[in-house]
């Protein structure tokens, strides 16, 4: 299931921890979520998020350029993960897997 996660949410989640360049983002997502984002996919997402004002590019450090999540990006990520949590809780309840919380 992790492989079907929205790459944009994965990238925003990674950047929510702090500024990162491309390789650091892919390594973080691979280690934390088990999803390997290809370079083409990653830069497609970075360009789209930058277009939407959800992340911003920082000055390059050598050949690498770090990215930072913006305040708009943090709000968008918060909305997204809240919705994902509601879906997850609903699914767990209906499957009878929610433990004592249902």
């Amino acid at each position, binding site marked *: 299931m992790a492989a079907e996660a929205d790459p944009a949410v994965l990238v925003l989640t990674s950047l929510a921890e702090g500024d990162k360049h*491309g390789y650091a983002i892919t390594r973080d997502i691979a280690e934390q979520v088990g999803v390997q984002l290809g370079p*083409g*996919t990653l*830069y497609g997402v970075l360009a789209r998020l*930058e277009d939407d004002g959800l992340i911003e590019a920082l000055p390059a450090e050598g*050949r690498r350029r770090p990215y930072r999540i913006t305040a708009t990006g943090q709000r968008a990520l918060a909305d997204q993960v809240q919705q994902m949590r509601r879906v997850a809780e609903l699914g767990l309840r209906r499957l009878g897997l929610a433990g004592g919380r249902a």
Partner: protein
Amino acid sequence: MLVALYPPAWRARYADEFSALLADTGVRLATELDVVAAAVRVWLHPPVRLHDHAGRMRTTVGVTLCAWAALAAGTIVFAKLTTDGAVFAHGRGADWYDVFTFAAFGSVLAMAAAWLPLSVAMVRRSRYRARVVAPLGAPTVLVLGFLAAAAALAGLLRPHTRTGAGIGMAGFLLLAVLGVVTAAGCAACPALALMRSRPDGPALTVAVVAGLVATAAMVIATIAAVGYTMARARSAGVAVFALVMAAALTVAAVSGVRGLRAVTAAGSNNHAG
């Protein structure tokens, strides 16, 4: 190598950091496939910030000219084969032929309206004018060369044909090949000038819009040509003609619409700015 798959505007912005990422991750088959698919997506839907509106318009003007050269060659061949190149026809289907003629000439005028102001703008902005003037003037030389070759061929071959009229099948085929080469040159040379001069501004916008008008006129001319052929119950070859014209029209129309979107987007950006 993989970075080269992306559009120039994308490379200008991301090439360094993307190359660094590829060096860090290493390149495997899965990486190559991922990058190829991503590059195709960027070509189809470039990031808004990186969209080179003037570049898109120049591409449209160049592509429209190339497609239009094929369309013009098609209409000339059609007129030659059906009425021996007459401007007006008589008898059955003459109304269709009138529409064909007016639409074809309208298309020529629209292309002139597209390219005359653009040519002036290109020459004006070019530092080395010969590099722009030469390819812009080449179509005139090519057309005159073609007409001279056609006249020479007619003079050489006509006495040797069975009826003493026309130039025979071999002569016609030779002329057709020369015509295709001329049409290709007439499209390629101004397109080369476009690449060298890289114009923008109102002349480029006019060229995009006038190119679309020229394409629309060619749509009407093609329909009228098919109508004329059907009215005279001569269907031989009309399907091939219609297919070739439809292919060139599709290329011109798709490129024209993308150019028009760039015109609109550039206008919105200017107003926003």
